């Protein structure tokens, strides 16, 4: 096969190249020619096109994300934004790395594999930092629960998240499953992974040291994920020679192999422990193009790669395709020459294929050879870091004034106890409010034996040290309704909720990650939403004193021209010094006093009540009060430390109504309660900075709360097998439970619903 070489490119400057088909604008293409002083080779064009894509270059979002970098320095931040994942000091010499990433589009095309490979990708990001991955979470959004396409997508996504995570032996400790018409045709699958290491074990993605070897290890390279750019396959110049013309078939779907990834994890951890790498990078989007150019540009020298050495699954791949392939379960390491044998030996022991494909060079070029000819010769920074940056125009959505003016205060409210009760059950039984066991029981939460809290708790919590009982807590939240009504406030509300969820467990919030799911950046209204959300999140983090350690941006989430509601999913990490004192959400004992912490105002904009009962979205979201959140968090930490509360549950979607029901149903302990003020507002308002706690020492809680400046309202006493709200409702727990648990199984629970949800390839199930 005769391919396009650097030499040839220099000689044929006027050859037409399909840059537009590859997603490069004319001026971007011109810049590449400028950088190289000639036209790019086909392989170079492939590299630039994937690396300068929105997904890899953050070209539309970069100017906004800078706000996160401008946050005040945090003492606990060991590695900040820019690496594969940020690293946070959690005390006792432990460091934690965590990040959330999207796999939205692939999960729509092939739900099982899309979701599975989403989990696989984020786990590798965490692994590259030197950490042992210890848990995963998933935040999911689907179209209407009863839509036929949701029945196609949801079972596969859930099976995929479970199939991959379970097989890796990572407990799933929490997440979200929410439904809204805006996600029909564009579901969101955001996966989070968290890993733990000692401070000295942190690894960075850098190619240092001239003469060091570049080792590619893990799965063989196939044609995965390059279906969309098969235009390049036809670019091989001489088709006459082998008689083949036209692009070969390349799958746009990547198939995950969690078994190989598990071996990759164990091999990597052994390699780290033996000190065998100087730099390491996972292969995710843009595959080898990304890994080699990022490693090289983060280092001090250049890099040379011999593409013939790359083990292939499909021998018909062209060099450009090899560079772009997104085959899963691959990693790239920089290894000193005298450690290569030991490195390969560890891989061999774990049955992981490992191959030296190149070395670190002096000079500042990334060069790639194929069949003895030079096909890439570029300055790596121009590929990895100096891609285009856009200041895209922004415009406040034209409909926003009308939307905000459409105040839910005007909606008919329940008048009688019967109506209140009916609305309560409706919210509780709605797909968003309903019990998520049908989903979460498909995930293993026990493996590794350190899970202290998992779903349905407000936060997930894992022990990281069996001697000291130190642990970490995590929560993920992303309410798209609030953000649609006001992206600045909405992003802060999501942050506040995740923060509060971590705080109720008794942990101290430490750091933030985020996955920003938005529509097309080319639409100024979407870009405005994005800019506002980032500004809100950055301001919120500043107010709470938390660093943003990293994240992910997913744009172009839309069906036709209609964008999804802006959905920034926010993850908050906290540390708990002694997980034996964690605070669970459910009521366990009768006779405890039920207290509401925080203040309730009539706030129904974007509420679950308005959505479920009236199909309404309008008005303004609840007000954010980050000072109040901070005070509340400090109070919760103190209460947990002193052992003053038996349970604590945060109030969010569905307000007090939802929180009371969930607390009671957790262990089947009811309560007899009196609501303060007007029952409707008390039950369904979504005012923030509120938590329900139970205690056997209400006086002590009141005293501590007073000192912390948090309002306390006594609601009643736990006990019995009903939720009795004087003058409002008497709900037997059996009835509540029936309503709460029936929804998802009725929609997705029949065996028939599984038909076709798991493809023929990977079906690990034990």
């Amino acid at each position, binding site marked *: 096969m005769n391919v396009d070489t650097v030499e040839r490119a220099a000689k044929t400057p006027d050859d037409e190249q399909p840059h537009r088909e590859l997603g490069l604008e004319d001026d971007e293409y011109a810049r590449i020619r400028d950088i190289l002083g000639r036209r790019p080779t086909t392989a170079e064009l492939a590299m630039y096109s994937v690396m300068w894509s929105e997904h890899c270059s953050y070209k539309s979002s970069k100017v906004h994300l800078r706000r996160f970098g401008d946050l005040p320095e945090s003492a606990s931040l060991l590695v900040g934004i820019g690496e594969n994942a940020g690293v946070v000091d959690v005390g006792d010499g432990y460091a934690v790395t965590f990040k959330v990433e999207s796999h939205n589009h692939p999960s729509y095309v092939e739900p099982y594999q899309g979701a599975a490979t989403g989990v696989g990708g984020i786990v590798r990001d965490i692994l590259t930092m030197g950490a042992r991955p210890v848990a995963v979470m998933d935040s999911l959004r689907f179209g209407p629960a009863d839509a036929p396409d949701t029945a196609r997508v949801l079972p596969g996504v859930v099976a995929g998240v479970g199939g991959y995570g379970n097989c890796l032996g990572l407990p799933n400790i929490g997440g979200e499953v929410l439904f809204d018409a805006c996600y029909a045709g564009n579901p969101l699958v955001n996966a989070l992974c968290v890993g733990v290491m000692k401070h000295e074990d942190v690894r960075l993605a850098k190619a240092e040291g001239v003469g060091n070897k570049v080792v590619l290890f893990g799965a063989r390279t196939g044609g995965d994920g390059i279906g969309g750019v098969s235009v390049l396959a036809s670019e091989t110049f001489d088709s006459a020679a082998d008689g083949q013309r036209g692009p070969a078939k390349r799958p746009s779907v990547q198939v995950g192999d969690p078994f190989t990834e*598990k071996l990759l994890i164990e091999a990597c951890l052994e390699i780290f422990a033996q000190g065998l790498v100087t730099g390491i990078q996972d292969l995710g989007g843009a595959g080898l193009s990304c890994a080699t150019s990022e490693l090289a540009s983060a280092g001090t020298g250049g890099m040379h790669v011999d593409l013939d050495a790359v083990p292939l699954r499909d021998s018909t791949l062209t060099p450009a395709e090899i560079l772009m392939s997104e085959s899963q379960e691959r990693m790239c390491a920089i290894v000193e020459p005298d450690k290569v044998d030991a490195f390969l030996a560890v891989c061999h022991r774990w049955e992981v294929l490992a191959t030296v494909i190149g070395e670190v060079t002096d000079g500042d070029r990334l060069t790639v050879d194929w069949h003895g000819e030079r096909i890439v010769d570029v300055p790596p920074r121009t590929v990895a870091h100096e891609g285009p940056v856009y200041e895209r125009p922004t415009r406040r959505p034209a409909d926003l004034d009308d939307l905000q003016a459409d105040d839910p205060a005007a909606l008919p409210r329940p008048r009688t106890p019967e109506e209140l009760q009916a609305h309560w059950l409706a919210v509780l039984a709605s797909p968003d409010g309903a019990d998520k066991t049908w989903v979460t029981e498909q995930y293993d939460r026990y493996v590794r034996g350190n899970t202290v809290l998992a779903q349905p708790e407000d936060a997930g919590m894992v022990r990281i040290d069996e001697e000291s009982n130190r642990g970490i807590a995590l929560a993920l939240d992303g309410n798209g309704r609030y953000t649609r009504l006001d992206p600045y406030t909405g992003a802060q509300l999501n942050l506040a909720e995740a923060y509060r969820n971590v705080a109720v467990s008794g942990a101290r919030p430490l750091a933030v990650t985020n996955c920003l799911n938005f529509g097309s950046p080319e639409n100024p209204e979407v870009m405005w939403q994005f800019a506002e959300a980032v500004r809100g999140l950055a301001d919120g983090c500043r107010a709470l004193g938390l660093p943003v350690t990293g994240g992910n941006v997913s744009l172009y989430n839309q069906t036709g021209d209609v964008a999804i509601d802006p959905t920034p999913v926010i993850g908050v990490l906290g540390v708990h010094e002694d997980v034996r004192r964690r605070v669970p959400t459910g009521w366990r004992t009768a006779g405890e006093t039920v207290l509401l912490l925080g203040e309730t105002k009539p706030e129904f904009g974007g509420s679950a009540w308005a959505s479920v009962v009236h199909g309404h979205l309008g008005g303004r979201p609840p007000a954010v009060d980050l000072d109040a959140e901070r005070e509340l968090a400090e109070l919760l930490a103190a209460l947990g430390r002193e052992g003053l509360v038996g349970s604590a549950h945060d109030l969010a979607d569905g307000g007090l109504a939802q929180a009371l029901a969930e607390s009671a149903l957790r262990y089947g302990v009811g309560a007899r309660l009196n609501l303060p003020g007007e029952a409707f507002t008390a039950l369904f308002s979504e005012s923030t900075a509120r938590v329900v706690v139970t205690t056997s020492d209400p006086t002590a809680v009141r005293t501590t709360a007073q000192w912390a400046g948090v309002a306390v309202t006594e609601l009643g006493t736990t006990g019995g097998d009903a939720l009795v709200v004087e003058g409002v409702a008497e709900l037997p727990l059996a009835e509540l439970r029936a309503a709460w648990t029936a929804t998802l199984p009725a929609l997705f629970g029949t065996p028939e619903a599984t038909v076709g949800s798991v493809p023929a390839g990977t079906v690990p*199930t*034990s």
Partner: protein
Amino acid sequence: MRIGVTTFPGSLDDVDAVRAVRLAGGEPVALWHGDHDLEDVDAVVLPGGFSYGDYLRAGAIAARAPLVQDIVTRARQGLPVLGICNGFQVLCEAGLLPGALTRNAHLHFRTRDQALRIERADSAWTRDYEAGQRIVVPVKNGEGRYVAAPADLDRIEAEGRVVVRYVEGNPNGSMRDIAGVTSADGRVVGLMPHPEHAVEELTGPSTDGLGFFTSVLEQVVSA
């Protein structure tokens, strides 16, 4: 007491089994799948996970590993062996235990805290329980449905080889609610539920699982 815990490529709950052995007072010994060396252990635990990805059939590929062949030989001579979940699947595939584990009837992976009844309190791994005792331990699997031909089931029942049974709901459609079985001599036990996940208040639904690991210690002492 040296209790071996095997690790195959894809084993996951080996860390949990090691912890359970330790909490029970035994000395855990890591056994690597490729070795032909049982290191003079007094008993062996095959933990849960997805050995070889559980590709083909759960446990099928691991059952052909060199180490398992050794375990089979030694088990036939009386070495106590406990297979949990994937370990149970391996023992059935290796022919040490009767029956087979197949795709759950509801076709999903399912995790839940499961009530069980101890049917046999005289196997090497259940002596610290009482017959008829109810315990709660996690169950989590996608291929946990115990099946055998009806005649074989009758024989297994008649020989008293059902060690644990699901009660208060069958999580996977196992025939006759069978959760675990034993070899004829009561020294090899396999079960789908995970006693090693119920050994600490903090992380399990109970500490009911510890008995499996303490039982074998006594067994070994008295043997």
